[in-house]
């Protein structure tokens, strides 16, 4: 992580978490009265995406702190809830939709722990099992070395038994969390891919071996873990390479500690393609056999997805017959062809995930 410019909204300097962050970044923030100043600064540079990754803007979250994952009606969603702690990412993955999602993309750190605490308290009081994650609009742990938010979240979740926190990352930033009495309510989660995809498409991320070593360490410290094979990329030899990744995964981690493993093939909004072509001119990730999906995102031709999923599932099952596998945004045909069942459109997938979370994270079983 290398931040070259730090902005902060006026009036936020005295917040405890902000002082903690600034002290560790060892930078003098430039105070602004409007986000427009920051966005104009980023937009005026030759490569706003790169500038956005090197510019941190400490601001208030003016939107919802906790909201449901938008999903789509045409593919089965897992009914996840998203906790907004910031936006964008210091790593640079070619396929990252955040490049096209924000205009312009800027690293934002949402200041203040109180709004988060207030929203979490409401969720905890609902007495309903919820799976909450921070990894939708940013990597969950990029700020861990300099922010008190990850520790705050792990501590908050440890004091209740209806909700689990999933921190999804491609980093190894878990050091400050290891000694917390987490009560198994935080799932540390890694996005996995083949070494060649990581090397060519996931700039500035941790290599596979590092991620798996971190997962092993998390397991040793009692954390439940989960993994996301997403995005799966189809290329010559990919099946064999994913197979090796799975072997390495189960060498590092005990299947009994895995809450779930998700699978999702690479899909993208058409607007992302010119960005990838411009910023990652050597990448061929967008030149697979993509068709327009029912949600207007580009997806691999379905028989190709089924073929890869079936192979990966068979490999995972050979190591971990009972681990919960699910698809992120796939349809009934894929579920049936690859997992021999379909959880339906009425929240059944969410229920399956809740059950696994309840089992691995010691949630209140009566809430199921």
């Amino acid at each position: 992580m290398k931040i070259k410019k730090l902005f902060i909204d006026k009036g936020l300097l005295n917040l405890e978490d902000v002082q903690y962050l600034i002290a560790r970044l060892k930078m003098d923030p430039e105070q602004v009265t409007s986000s427009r100043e920051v966005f104009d600064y980023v937009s005026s540079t030759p490569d706003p995406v790169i500038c956005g990754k090197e510019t941190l803007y400490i601001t208030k979250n003016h939107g919802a702190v906790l909201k449901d994952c938008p999903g789509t009606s045409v593919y089965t969603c897992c009914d996840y809830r998203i906790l907004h702690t910031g936006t964008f990412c210091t790593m640079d993955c070619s396929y990252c939709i955040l490049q096209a999602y924000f205009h312009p993309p800027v690293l934002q750190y949402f200041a203040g722990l109180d709004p988060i605490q207030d929203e979490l308290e409401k969720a905890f009081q609902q007495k309903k099992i919820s799976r909450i994650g921070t990894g939708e609009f940013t990597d969950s742990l990029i700020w861990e070395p300099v922010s008190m938010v990850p520790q705050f979240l792990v501590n908050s979740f440890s004091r209740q038994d209806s909700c689990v926190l999933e921190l999804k990352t491609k980093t190894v930033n878990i050091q400050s969390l290891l000694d917390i009495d987490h009560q198994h309510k935080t799932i540390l989660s890694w996005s996995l891919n083949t070494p060649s995809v990581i090397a060519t498409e996931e700039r500035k991320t941790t290599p596979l071996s590092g991620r798996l070593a971190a997962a092993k360490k998390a397991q040793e410290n009692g954390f439940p873990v989960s993994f996301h094979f997403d995005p799966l990329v189809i290329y010559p030899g990919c099946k064999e390479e994913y197979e090796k990744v799975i072997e390495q995964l189960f060498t590092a981690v005990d299947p009994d500690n895995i809450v779930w493993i998700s699978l999702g093939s690479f899909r993208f909004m058409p607007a992302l393609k010119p960005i990838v072509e411009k910023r990652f001119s050597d990448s061929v990730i967008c030149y697979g056999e993509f068709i327009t999906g029912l949600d207007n995102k580009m997806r691999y031709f379905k028989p190709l997805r089924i073929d890869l999923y079936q192979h990966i599932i068979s490999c995972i099952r050979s190591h971990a017959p009972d681990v919960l596998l699910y698809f992120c945004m796939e349809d009934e045909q894929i579920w049936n062809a690859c997992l021999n069942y379909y959880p339906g459109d009425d929240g059944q997938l969410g229920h399956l995930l809740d059950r696994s979370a309840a089992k691995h994270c010691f949630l209140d079983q009566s809430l199921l």
Partner: protein
Amino acid sequence: MSDCIQKIRVSDIDFSDTRYCFTPETDLKKNLALSIAAFGLPSPVWVRPDNGKFILLSGFAQAKAFSENKGEIIEAHLTDPALSDADCLLKAVILQSFPEPLPHAMLISAISGLSQFFDAGYLSEHSAAIFNTVLSRPFIEELLSISKGPEQGLLLLLQNRITLKTLRYLYKCPDEKGRALFKLFSGITASASKQMEIAVRFAEICARDRISGSELLRQEKIRKTLDDADISSAQKAEVIRHELFVMRYPELSRTKQEVNRMIQSFKTGSRIKIDPSKDFEGTDYTITIKVKSAQDLKESVERLQNLSEQPDFNRIFLS
């Protein structure tokens, strides 16, 4: 002296000086020559006096046709000799931009010439008056940048082989790939949308397979199609477009072909149509039945019933 109309000798026109001509097209317009022979020159041409000779500003095709008809004296507007090069160029552009704005190839050429004297901001500000159409500054700057690209691109644009959108795409391709695409488009004729499909598929196959554009052009089916003297350039475009689709989407095209073959083998006739979901992404297939009567409907339903019981029928659903 201000502009005036005079009769001048055709032999005094320097046809080789094309500084005000924004199209390299010099083919004789036969119908125009016939018209001039039968009914005379439709309107005077415009010329600039230059050391006893005349340089054409407008009416290139008319003057050439007139000359081919062995005409000796032609009626011409003479510009004020005091006009500067910039003024003459501006006048030439204006004369050729009304009543219809210049096509893109000529516009690029005109803007390239005018840029020697006027900046993009000035040209944009006065674009309606000069070009008979409003042009934004970024668009003028883009056309200027295109004018500095390979001449082959402008020629293809002028010949209506490619649109400006396609040309933009080709210019963004790396040099070698761009040259191969210029070569490809010089041999085919396709609509605007098909041009882009062809260009994008071609470029993406090269990138995906790590091959050069010339290697792809040497691919047997493409090479043979381009060399085929018995089919038109439009037919060549269709064949190459399909071939590029097969190369770009091998599994999808194979599946489409296979499912279509299976559907045709059911011999449902023209009144029952079976359509898979687009690119097989959805799970629903559509069956359309055309009927003229209740009896007709009954027969079609029976036919479908029989069809659904055939072992092969389920194979079209790819499940």
